[in-house]
Structures are given as C-alpha cells and as structure tokens.
C-alpha cells in the first residue's frame, strides 16, 4: 500500500502571469495562492506511510492470533482512490473556452484586417497638396457635398460650416 506517482504537468507561472490581462489579475493571484497552498500541503505529506514492525508486535503482544490476524487484514486492505468529480467539469469548461476563444480570435482577425485596410488607404493616399476636390471626395466620401439635398451653395446646413 504505497502512494502512487501522479502525472502533474509542470506549470510555468511566470509565462502564465505574463498572459493575464490586467483586469483579471486578482483572479490569477487567488488561483496562484490556492495552488501554492495545495502543493505545499501535498509536499508536507510523505508519500508512503510508516511501516509497521510486525515481528516486534508478534513478540510483544501475548494474545496468540491477534497480531497475525491484524497483519493479514492490514495487508489485504485496499484503500480506494478518491473519486474524481471535477475533471469532467473542467474539461467541459476548457472546450467551451476554446470555442469562445476561437470565436474571439476570428472577430479579432477580422478587425485587424479592417484596420490594415484603412491603414493601407492612408498610406497610399495622395498627399493633400496634390489632391483635387474629386480626389478628396473619393478618399474621404464624407466630404462629398450633397448637391441634390442642398442645391444652393454652400451645399450643407449653415450650422456645419
């Protein structure tokens, strides 16, 4: 009945801390303290318990079959492993977070493409002192004066002058 070796993944807390956004920092700190407490508790317990010196007890205890009986029962005893209830929940959480993260990354890439497009427009623009009014209206459609809506000069409401 010895302890078993569990598969613990080594976590790089430094790299983890770098990736945490500032608004989730407190949650990260709570997680870290909890994890450290658990790890410390685990480390404080020795892996296998102290062995019982059966021969000494056999010599010491007068009652005849008692030590043998104890020894037999002790060796036959199997301690059940504690049941793992949380890992499935965690895996479900992970799947969900993967989904939402990929959706977010998609949206983010779309936004980046949009920004890049606008940036390119600005980069490839004619310099202002070489533009005509038509060029300006092409580059910035908001500058185009609506001559149908306001047929008389200045083709925009006076308040916007």
């Amino acid at each position, binding site marked *: *009945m010895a*302890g078993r070796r*569990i*598969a*613990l*993944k080594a*976590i790089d807390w430094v*790299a*983890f801390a770098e*990736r*945490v*956004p500032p608004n989730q920092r407190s949650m990260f700190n709570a*997680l870290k303290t*909890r*994890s450290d407490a*658990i*790890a410390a508790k*685990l480390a404080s*317990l020795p892996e296998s*318990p*102290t062995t*019982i010196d059966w021969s000494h007890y056999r010599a*010491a*205890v007068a009652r005849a079959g008692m*030590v043998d009986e*104890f020894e037999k029962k*002790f060796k036959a*005893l199997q*301690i059940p*492993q*504690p049941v*793992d209830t949380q890992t499935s929940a*965690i895996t479900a*959480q*992970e799947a969900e*977070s*993967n989904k939402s*993260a990929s959706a977010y*990354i998609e949206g*983010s*890439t779309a*936004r*980046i493409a949009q*920004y*890049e497009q606008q*940036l390119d427009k*600005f*980069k490839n*623009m004619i310099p*202002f002192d*070489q*533009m*005509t*009014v038509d060029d*300006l209206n092409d580059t*910035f459609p*908001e*500058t185009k004066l609506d001559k149908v809506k306001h047929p008389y000069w200045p083709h925009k409401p006076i308040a*916007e*002058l």
Partner: protein
Amino acid sequence: MIEKQTRFNQSVYDCLFLVAANALKGSSPLGAGLVQASRSLHTTSQSLAPVPSLPEKGGKVRHGIFPEEIFQLLYPKTGVTGPYMLGTGLLLYMLSKEIYVINHETIAALSIGTVIVYGVKKFGPDVAAFADKLNQDKVAKAQEVKDLAMTSLSQAIEEEKKEQWRAEGRSLLFDAKKNNVAMLLETNYRERLHMVTHEVKRRLDYQVALQDLNRRMEQEHMVNWVEKSVVGSITPQQEKESIAKCISDLKALAKSTQAMA
C-alpha cells in the same frame, strides 16, 4: 470623431479652394502653358489621372506685364534690347498717329496705376505670405489628422495581436486547475493511508500497553502481598528474640569501637 472629420473635411475643402485661387492668381494664359503645353483642356474624354500638379509660380513676366517668352522669342534676331525697341516703337507709333489719344483718362490711369503698383510692391509679399500660411495651416491640420489616424490604427492592430496572444494562454489555466484537482486527490489518498496505518498501530500499541500494565500491577500486588505476609509471619516470640540479638550485637559493636578508640 464624426465632427472632427467634418471639420477636417471642410478645412481641406477650403484649403483646396485656396490652392486653386493661389494658382490662378499667378498664372496668365501663356504662362500656364509652360507645363501643360502638350495637353489641351477638355478636348479628350480620357482622364489624365493622376492630375499633374499645378505649377508653383505663374509664368515669368518682366515689368509685371510682359511675358518672358517674347523676350526669348526676339533674342536670337534682335538681342537683349530688341523687345524694348519694339515696345518704344509701338508706343511712339500709337501716340504719333493718335491711335491712342491722350486725354483726361490718361492722367487718371497713370495716377491710379502708380498707386496700385506702389501698393502691390509694398504689401504684396506680406499678403502672399499670409495667404500661404492660411493654406499651410489647413494642410498641416489635415496631415496631423492623417498621422493620428495612422498611429491609432497601427496601435489598435498591435493591441489586437496582443489580445490574441493572451487568449492563446488559456490552456495554462486549465492545466493549473487539473493539477490542483489531482493534487487534492493525491493528498486525500495519502491522508487515508496514513490514517489507516496510524489506527492499526494505535490498537497494537494499546494491546502492548495493556499487557504491560497488567504485568506491572501483578508485580506490585505480589510484592505487597509477600511483604505483608512476611511482616505478618513475624511472631512476638521471634520479635523479642531478634530485638535481644540486636541489642547484644550493638553492645558488642560498641565495645569493639570503644576498644579501638
């Protein structure tokens, strides 16, 4: 953002208007032909884009009115003084033949002309500088807006990339959680092991201690019993005898010590 855009737009519009005005101010029909000699206005339906930029200054003129081209035209044949001779001749011809009649209007024209020329010569550069500055301010403002837009866009791109990088680290969180769960389970298991061993040991130790206690109690009881029986078995006769023996022994001892001392 929208009102900044519209103000920027109208400022750009204004500045373009001013640019056009400035360009038109300096150019005379022949002067502008320097750059666009080969291109005639609105004759083809093709658009010659990008539109070549307007010339910075108008065509060169001498004495404010006479284009430089005439002087260049006449230079090979008549040298430097040719156009001046031509001008003098023409003037004299018009005066003498009375094609141009001198009357009151002439004096008025001369006076007004003097004043105008004086005014332009004195204040011209300042006014031009002022107009140029207005233009430049508008262009600078537009440029500023453009630069700001570009920097903010590139910054936004950087931040999006950073957020994507952050999102990639989500597996670390779940690893940590799973680790915690595993550690808790292991701790629990070890505690159980320890508890079992501890309890068994306790029971065995109890048995041993019980036995020891029994033995000790038996021993003490036996010792006490033996003592009591021994003390009880001493009869009065024996006691007297033993006391007499003790006294005689003591006397002998005293005598021996007295003899020694």
